[in-house]
C-alpha cells in the first residue's frame, strides 16, 4: 500500500520568524511536525530538534527493523525516540539561558499497510479525510479542550476564550513527556492532514475539507490550505503535512485526486 507525501511550512502574515518545522522520511513512511515555543529563535530550535531528531532516529530504526517489527514494537520505538528528543530539547534549554523554557508540540506518524500509527503532544493536529469527510484524529492537549471535555464551555465559546493557546503538555519542558498514541485504519484514497494551529485556528474544518476536495495534487492542497490561512489573517506560522494512501479504492468510492 504505497503512500504519497508532501510537506510545507509558511511563516504566515504576521510573524517574522518561523518556529514550525516538518520532516518526512519517504522510505520509512514517517512524518513529523512540530510547532515550537520560546522567544527569539528558541521555538525554532526546539521544533527543529524535534523533527530532525525523530526523523533521523525513528527513520533509521524503521528502515532497519520495520519488516520484522509489529505495531507494538513501532509504538515503543516511537515512545523512545520522542523521549530522547524531549531530553535533547530539555538539556539544551537548561544549558543556555536564552533557550530556557523552550518547548514544542509534536505530531508523529508512521504509515503502515492499512493503518497509521499516530502519536502527538500538544495542540498540533492530525485529521483524516475520507469520502469528503474530515475527521480530527487527535484530541488537543490544551486547557481549552479540557474545559470543553469537562462541559464547562462549548466549542463556540472556546473561540473567545482568554485561555487560547495554553497547552497542557509540550516536548522539552519537563524531564519526561507523555506521548499520546493510537492506531487508525487507512483505506485507499484516504488523505491524512497534519497541521499546526497556525492552520486550524485560521480556517475551520469545513473550509479545510472543501480545499482538500478541490485540489488536484497534494502540493496544490498544501498551497491552498496555506493561502487560505494567510487570507484569513495568517496570525501564526503554518505547517502542513499531507499524506495520501494510493492504491486500490473499494468499489463505489471515488478516487482522489479526481476533482469534483
Amino acid at each position, binding site marked *: 500500500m504505497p503512500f504519497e507525501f508532501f510537506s510545507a511550512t509558511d511563516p504566515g502574515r*504576521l*510573524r517574522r520568524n518561523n518556529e514550525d518545522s516538518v520532516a518526512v522520511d519517504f522510505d520509512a513512511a514517517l512524518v513529523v511536525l512540530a510547532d515550537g515555543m520560546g522567544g527569539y*529563535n528558541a521555538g525554532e530550535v526546539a521544533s527543529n530538534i524535534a523533527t530532525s531528531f525523530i526523523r533521523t532516529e525513528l527513520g533509521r530504526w524503521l528502515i532497519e527493523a520495520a519488516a520484522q517489527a509489529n505495531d507494538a514494537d513501532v509504538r515503543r520505538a516511537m515512545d523512545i525516540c520522542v523521549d530522547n528528543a524531549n531530553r535533547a530539547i530539555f538539556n539544551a534549554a537548561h544549558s543556555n539561558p536564552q533557550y530556557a523554557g523552550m518547548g514544542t508540540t509534536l505530531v508523529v506518524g508512521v504509515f503502515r499497510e492499512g493503518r497509521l500509527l499516530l502519536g502527538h503532544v500538544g495542540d498540533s493536529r492530525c485529521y483524516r479525510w475520507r469520502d469528503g469527510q474530515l475527521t480530527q484524529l487527535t484530541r488537543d492537549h490544551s*486547557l481549552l479542550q479540557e*474545559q470543553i471535555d469537562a462541559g464547562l464551555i462549548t466549542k463556540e465559546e472556546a473561540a473567545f476564550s482568554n485561555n487560547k*493557546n495554553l497547552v497542557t503538555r509540550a516536548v522539552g519542558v519537563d524531564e519526561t513527556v507523555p506521548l499520546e498514541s493510537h492506531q487508525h485504519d487507512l483505506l485507499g484514497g484516504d488523505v491524512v492532514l497534519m497541521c499546526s494551529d497556525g492552520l486550524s485556528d485560521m480556517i475551520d474544518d469545513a473550509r479545510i475539507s472543501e480545499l482538500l476536495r478541490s485540489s488536484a495534487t497534494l502540493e496544490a492542497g498544501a498551497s491552498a490550505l496555506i493561502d487560505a490561512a494567510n487570507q484569513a489573517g495568517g496570525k501564526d506560522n503554518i505547517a502542513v503535512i499531507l499524506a495520501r494512501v494510493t492504491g486500490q479504492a473499494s468499489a463505489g468510492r471515488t478516487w482522489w485526486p479526481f476533482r469534483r
Partner: protein
Amino acid sequence: MSERAMPSPAERSHLGPYRIERQLGRGAMGAVYLGTDPRTGKAVALKTMALATEFDGTELEDARERFFREAETAGRLRHPDIVRILDAGEHDGTAYVAMEYLTGHDLQGHTQSTQLLSLPAVVRIGARVADALAYAHSQGVVHRDVKPANVMVDLEADVVKVTDFGIACIADASRTRTGVVLGTPSYMSPEQLSGRRLDGRSDLYSLGVMLFQLLTGQLPHQNEAMARLLHAIVNEPAADLRSVRPDLPDALAQVVARLLSKQPEARPADGWQVANDLRAVAALGSSVDPSGGVPVVTEPAALRDLEAQPFATTVSLPQPDRGHNPKL
C-alpha cells in the same frame, strides 16, 4: 526565511537607560535580566519581550500598544507588597519592563508537605497578600494568576511581594500562538474555568487555594485527569481544611472554605475582609497558645533567628505536636 536583523539583549550592554549586568533567566515572554539604574545605582529586573521579532506590521503596532498600556496599568500599582514596576520602554525592537529586583524566593517551595511554613507565617503572609490584592482590585486590576509561584518572600527581611501583576496581561498580548505550557489550572477559579467574567473575587478564590496548599501540602481538588479536575473545581465542594489537618483552628478553616466558595457572592467581598479575618485567626492563636503562636525551639541560635524573623520556618518541637509527625 527568518531575518535576525536585531541583536538580542544578550548581545547588548543597555536596555534604555539601564545597564545589563547578566541574564537571570526567562519569563513567559522572553529573557529576564539583572540590570542597574545608573541614575540611582539600584538593581532592577528587566523583563523583555522581543516584539519586533515576534510581530510585524499592524500587529506589531497593536502588540506595542497593548504592551505599554498594560505596563502603564501595572505601573500605577504602588503598594509595599506588590512588586513595583518602575519603567517600561523599547530598545531596538525589544520591549522591556523594569521592576524592582527582589531577593528571596517564591512560595512554590513551601507547597510540599515536608517544607511547610508555620501556621502563623502562612496566616501573616496570607493577610498581606489579601491586602495587596484588595488594593489592586480597588485600582481596577485583577491579577488572574494568583499562585505560590507568584508570591515572593524574604523571611529574614520580612518581605512579601505579589509578582506578575498585569504582566499576565502583557503576556496575553504575546499569546497569539502556542507559547505557554500550563503547569496546572488548580488555582483557577470556577468562573475562570467556565469562561465567565472575572472580578477581584476570582483572585480571592485563588488565594484560598494557595492558603489550603501552604497549610496542608495538598490542593483542595485533585485528579489525574485534567478534564475531571476542572469539572471538580467547578462542581464539587472543596475539601475541608480540617479533614487534612484537624489541628488547625476552626476559624481558619472557615475563612478558607469561604474563599473556596463556587459562587463569587459567597466569598468575602474584598481582600481587606480576608486580611482582617486572617489577622483575627492569628490573634486567636496567640491568645490560646502559651508560646504566643510561635513554635518553641530548643536551640538558642534558632531562637535568636526567630526574634529576627517574624516569619519563622518550621522548626523542631521538643515534643510531638498533635497533628504532626515527629521530625525524623
